[in-house]
């Protein structure tokens, strides 16, 4: 089980801030494929991956990152701090 978190418009499109996901996906990309296959709202949120950033266990990374031993994956748009 992995905690999957969503922020900003990704959260709004999917309709929840976090969920526990049962998965054996080896990478973030495979987890995204699994989520997209679930429902239209996931497909809508992940339609353009170039607009989404990912963090694995609170570290920015890429979609090819492995999920072995990972507790938390977060998806969000490019950050707008400052």
């Amino acid at each position, binding site marked *: 089980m992995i905690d999957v978190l969503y*922020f*900003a*418009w990704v959260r709004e499109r999917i309709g929840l801030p976090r969920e526990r996901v049962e998965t054996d996906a080896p990478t973030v990309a495979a987890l995204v494929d699994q989520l997209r296959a679930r429902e239209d709202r996931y497909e809508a949120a992940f339609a353009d991956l170039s607009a989404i950033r990912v*963090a694995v266990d*609170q570290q920015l990374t890429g979609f090819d990152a492995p999920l072995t031993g990972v507790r938390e994956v*977060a998806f969000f748009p*490019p950050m*707008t*701090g*400052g």
Partner: protein
Amino acid sequence: MEIRILPDAFDPGAELARFSTDRSGTGAIVTFTGLVRDDGGALHALEIEHYPGMTEAAVTAMVAEAEGRWTLTDALVVHRHGTLRPGEPIMMVATAARHRAAAFAAAEFLMDYLKSRAPFWKKETTRDGTSWVAARDEDEAALDRWT
């Protein structure tokens, strides 16, 4: 270093006064304060969302990186989340060093990284409705000068 991610309003002047106290060995302090800008009176509110836990870790890593690049005597980052009104301070950075060059450079470095690499997202409410603020290409490009 000191990093505060907070839901409440803060007073940049009071922060600077406190940060400047008892600073033997420091000859320069640079501060930057970001305000909620309202272009033309259309903005009602700015909502800032963040990623609790990762935000603190990411900002701490940025400050540690700055302390590795320049010899600083201290650094402070304050950043709000929640609902802000036009004109309110969003965030401030303060850097202290023996001489001003390091303090200026480290403050700019921290600002560039806070813009694009700290997990905050801004949503504007204007008289026309609400929309997420898009990341700017210039902000992403600004990181190139530090690599």
